[in-house]
């Protein structure tokens, strides 16, 4: 499983992760599609939240709310690589996933914007062609971390989830509308 951890205290919002992401997306493309003018849109964002720049990046959740919300079957969980992925040609651009993702990690290209070679829906693809995600490799502050491998995951993910839940909800229990009842 791929897993991201973002330590916002360390992040100073330099944006190198975005640059690395943009360039990384060109790998493997034919030569005429490479180079600065053909730079692709990054699949992670820096957003101003409570007057601090924060990284919005997909966490490749185990039970992703975006996949639950997807009405056209475009978003799916790739269990082999442990990532949440998109079938671009199936997306109808309904914004349901944008509304659900608590990390703000999915964007949809509005047809009102200029057309581009990018897909309809933009989200982290997990850099599966690389040894580690490029944003992590290029972060000078070590604010982003990633881990691969199913076994490391379980424990780490549980811990991350617990801190996240504590931070965003001030209570225990998963985000979303389901609660496991121990009563």
């Amino acid at each position, binding site marked *: 499983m791929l897993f991201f951890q973002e330590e916002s205290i360390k992040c100073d919002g330099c944006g190198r992760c975005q640059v690395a992401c943009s360039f990384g997306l060109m790998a493997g493309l034919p030569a005429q599609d490479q180079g600065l003018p053909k730079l692709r849109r990054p699949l992670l*964002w820096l*957003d101003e*939240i409570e007057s601090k720049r924060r990284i*919005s990046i997909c966490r490749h959740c185990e039970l992703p709310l975006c996949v*639950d*919300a997807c*009405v*056209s*079957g475009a978003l799916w969980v790739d269990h082999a690589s442990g990532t949440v992925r998109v079938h671009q040609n*199936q997306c*109808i*651009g*309904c*914004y*349901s996933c*944008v*509304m*659900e*993702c*608590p*990390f*703000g*990690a*999915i*964007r*949809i290209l*509005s*047809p*009102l914007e200029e057309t581009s070679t990018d897909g309809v829906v933009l989200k982290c693809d997990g850099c599966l062609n690389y040894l580690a995600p490029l944003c992590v490799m290029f972060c000078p502050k070590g604010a982003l971390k990633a881990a691969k491998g199913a076994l490391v995951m379980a424990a780490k993910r549980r811990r991350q989830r617990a801190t996240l839940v504590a931070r*965003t*909800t*001030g*209570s225990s*229990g998963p*985000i*979303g*509308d*389901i*609660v*496991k*009842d*121990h*009563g």
Partner: protein
Amino acid sequence: MLRTMAKYVIVGNSAAGLAGVKAIRSQDPFGEITVISEEKHSPYSRVLLAPYIAGHIKIQDLFPEDQDLMVRLKVNQLIGNRAIAIHPAHRTVELETGQAIPYESLLLATGGRPVFPKDLLAGIKGIAGFRTLDDADNIRRQAMAGAKIAILGGGLVGVKLACALHEAGNSPDMIVSSPHLLSQVSDDEGAGLVQQHMERHGIRIRCGVEVLRIIQDPAGGLKSIVLSSGEEEPCQLLVVCKGVRPNTALVDRLLSTPSGIPVNSRMQTALPNIYAAGDVARTYDLTRKESRLMPIWPHAVAQGRIAGLNMAGEKIRYRGSLPRNALEILGLPFISMGIVQPPAQEEWAVFTDPQRNSYQKKVYFRGKLVGAVLVNRVEAAGRLQAEIRSAAGDGYEHDLERRN
């Protein structure tokens, strides 16, 4: 001793019913699952009907599951069969054919049906609702034949249908009785942007107008409609999009169901071993702090799953519903959640950020976020939803207290 095989019966074959089936099968590989459905189609996505009319997707893409899912999950399908009564004493569901289907636990996922104003009776040729695949096929066929179409109602369904018809090359008229579009899910400023955008594309929208009566041609078809503004509009098809009413007929005799079947956090109704989920179930609204109907697709899926898990013996609770809608209106994104039009009282605070072509509004109650409207700048939607949910906590805590 081995337990005999459990018998699960599910009435309804859409979002909640299908989610229920999958949840039951995930816990109980052997139980006998029977699905009773009035509609003759395999489960399809109602959300995709508008893109289907618009011509963005093909009919085979309406079915989110592959056709043999029900076979793989070993489900007895009684499709094209209507359930007409429940006998809790005998634990059976009675079908129109007279057959009685025994159950050990029963899920009512019967959904809703479009509301028709009393004086515009349904069934007249040329007046239709927009809910099922058959409705969509009918509208699509008429749109292709070049019929003049009017849409009554300016809610989400009406707006979606108007945009879909526009994209299909038909130019519909919208007749809205409220002073602005999307009056249930937006304030006038956000809706104003949407309306301008739609009008720029050539969709005619009239607000604050009712349909007084309809005029039929000699063949019995629809010829025109007379509006409260005095105008007479030619119209061959009038699509009524005035919301949905829950299909509670099965339990009306057994329960009081003023607006939907009330359920607890496990989706149980007051009747033993009978669960309800989806558009027919009345659940707790996290922002309004009351139980009501919130017929939207994601609620149906979540509730169906929870009902199914509980029917199969798990103990899973629902936290409560957060009414929310995301919409793409001819390229313009629109997202609305929770309470968007608060009363003018001291405890409520509203922050708006209107720009030339975008709009954001946040509604706070006693310092906690309870609602938002976002138009054309929607990246923050997911985070805002997480914030609303975390501020609201668990809607069914009172359920727990009662049990302890």
